[in-house]
């Protein structure tokens, strides 16, 4: 089990600069802190979560830690360069890591993880029955939330193994791009409450309802469902629920364990976002939800920030001068440069305004801003570059 959690509603990055609202997130301090055992990266889709997770893991490893990174759906070339294009649900060592630390990586196979849980919880006969059920097949591969649940399950497994064998001292987890920001926190709970739900309970005891009224109501329902879905549907569902119910106790306990692990002090949540309204709104949900659940939030990483051109020239001045030049020479190179400058200044201003709004609403959240790279990251060298940027960010404002 994890260390017991102290009463800290939310954790602010270690290097909170005084006088500033949020302050810069000191990523290196977080990575170097030996008490940091788990880093969970969460955020909406398309914000560079996977790259951030991998970059953090590599940086931590090259700073001497024994790291494993759990990714969900890395870009093909990145997966290849890390040697994890094979989906076998086992951490594999990444070659080419410099320094005394080590880095293993694995890509989550959701269905396989689910199967493993079932196999470990049920008798072989029962397990086969579950694995063959059409509901199980659908649930284990497409139920919204299964991926989230399985990511957390795998995290729990790796953590237990690492505690026992000392293989890793830091686990970095990439979370699935959830339809809802909160899916990964709710998934264990949802799976439990599904199995605990009234309807499922009724399916488990179809013949002997607690009261006559209930039984009558159930008859109405089963008739309606049979009418809409066909009899086979209900029968399969009933088999599935009955079978799964046997392993239910195990599920619930594990979900609870993983949840406490996430809440414990050795865990640090990083919310990843891009400087776009939607992504930052999602990030706000995350921050609020994490604080509500007393989850240890380390900070916000804003990826893909437009590089600040610096200098004094404002967008308006640049545009005025550009127009003046275009009047005499419509193809003026300098006018083009000035317009580009104006465009970039506007981008930077807009992004800053968005970040400021976030910081005003959540002054306790330390922030790291990572400038956009020109190209995609698909090798260790690229990850190292991102890691260096993460390590030396200063909260812009």
């Amino acid at each position: 089990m994890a260390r017991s959690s102290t009463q800290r509603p939310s954790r602010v990055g270690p290097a909170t600069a005084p006088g500033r609202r949020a302050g810069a997130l000191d990523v290196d301090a977080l990575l170097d802190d030996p008490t940091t055992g788990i880093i969970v990266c969460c955020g909406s889709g398309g914000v560079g979560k996977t790259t951030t997770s991998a970059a953090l893991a590599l940086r931590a490893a090259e700073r001497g830690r024994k790291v494993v990174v759990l990714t969900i759906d890395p870009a093909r070339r990145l997966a290849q360069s890390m040697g994890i294009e094979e989906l076998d649900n086992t951490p594999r060592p990444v070659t080419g890591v410099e320094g005394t630390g080590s880095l293993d990586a694995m890509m989550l196979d959701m269905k396989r993880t689910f199967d493993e849980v079932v196999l470990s919880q049920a008798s072989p006969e029962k397990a086969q029955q579950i694995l063959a059920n059409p509901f199980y097949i659908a649930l284990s591969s497409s139920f919204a939330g299964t991926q989230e649940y399985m990511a957390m399950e795998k995290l729990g497994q790796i953590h237990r193994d690492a505690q026992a064998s000392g293989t890793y001292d830091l686990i970095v987890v990439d979370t699935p791009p959830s339809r809802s920001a909160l899916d990964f926190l709710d998934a264990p709970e949802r799976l439990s409450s599904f199995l605990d739900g009234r309807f499922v309970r009724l399916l488990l005891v179809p013949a002997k309802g607690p009261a006559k009224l209930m039984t009558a109501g159930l008859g109405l329902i089963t008739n309606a469902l049979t009418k809409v879905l066909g009899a086979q549907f209900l029968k399969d569902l009933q088999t599935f629920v009955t079978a799964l119910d046997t392993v239910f106790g195990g599920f619930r306990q594990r979900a609870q364990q993983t949840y406490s692990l996430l809440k414990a002090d050795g865990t640090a949540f990083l919310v990843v976002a891009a400087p776009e309204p939607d992504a930052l709104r999602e990030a706000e949900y995350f921050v609020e939800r994490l604080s509500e659940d007393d989850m240890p939030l380390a900070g916000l990483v804003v990826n893909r920030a437009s590089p600040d051109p610096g200098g004094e020239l404002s967008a308006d001045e640049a545009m005025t001068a550009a127009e003046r030049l275009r009047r005499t020479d419509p193809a003026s190179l300098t006018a083009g440069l000035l317009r580009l400058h104006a465009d970039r200044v506007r981008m930077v201003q807009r992004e800053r305004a968005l970040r400021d709004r976030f910081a005003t609403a959540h002054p306790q959240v330390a922030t790291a801003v990572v400038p956009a790279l020109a190209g995609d990251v698909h090798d260790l060298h690229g990850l190292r570059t991102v890691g260096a940027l993460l390590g030396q960010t200063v909260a812009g404002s």
Partner: protein
Amino acid sequence: MSDWGKVRLHVVTGKGGTGKSTVASALALALATRGKNVLLCEVEGRQGIARMFDVDPLPYQERRLTTGLPDADGGRGVVHALHIDAESALLEYLSMYYRLGRAGKALDRFGVIEFATTIAPGVRDVLLTGKVYEAVQRNSRNKGAIEYDAVVLDAPPTGRITQFLNVSNELAGLAKVGPIKSQSDTMMTLFRSPRTAVHLVTVLEEMPVQETADGITELRAARLPVGGVVVNQVRPRDLTDEQLSAARAGTLDRTRIEQDLTDGGLEVGPGLVDGLLAEAADHAERRALEDSQRDLVAALDVPSYELPRMAGGIDLGGLYELAGLLREQGMA
């Protein structure tokens, strides 16, 4: 002329962060020409339409949202909006097809509605797409309901789109017979017909372009009709190709630029020219990467449309501007 004149259902998908909701909204505005009724639907519960058009959160009910982009003579149609959630869709569906007055309520009381819509895999998607299907298939027999000339669906992201539309396949293992099964088959007939087009939104970066290519392959394998590729957030083109290569090589004429800046009425401080040259070099590098991705998009062999990156963000005016660009390029 529109490239998609026969299409009644425009499904807009894209990788997260590429702006698919923006494109769906702009497309709806562009399609709403004189006398036309367009329905813009969302299914992911994010209320993105309401935010984009700055209106109150949408209920499970069609609402008049705004008027379309005017044509040359100022004629414009109407854009309606609908937020589809699976729970309401299921209740509506049950009362519509089965007249399950009492049983419908009982289902709710026993948690079946919640069960069916959050857990039972595939059912959720069938319900969401079922409502979209209903809106597309309406005709004069549906008294009192608006008949739409086009329906635009702000759909789930590229990674999930084929699964989402391939409803009968999703249900295959579960409901082998029964009315839901036959209804999902009817829906598939529409989704696979030339009256449907699945458009994919991308930006000119490696991963989104790769995902677009994969998405097209998957859609084709499922025999779902691929529409166009909308390339969103394209960088400004203020420099010519020669200027870009000079910027990359670091051979832009520094003295000339200094002179121009002075002529343009700017005070040329110590860092100004250096700053502009550095920005130009960085921009040129990114443009080169864009160009290589653009070649890949062209090789996908589907019609493509380009929309610029809006430096100041996208407000309602910006949406109409994008709609105008889509119409100009023949997407609507």
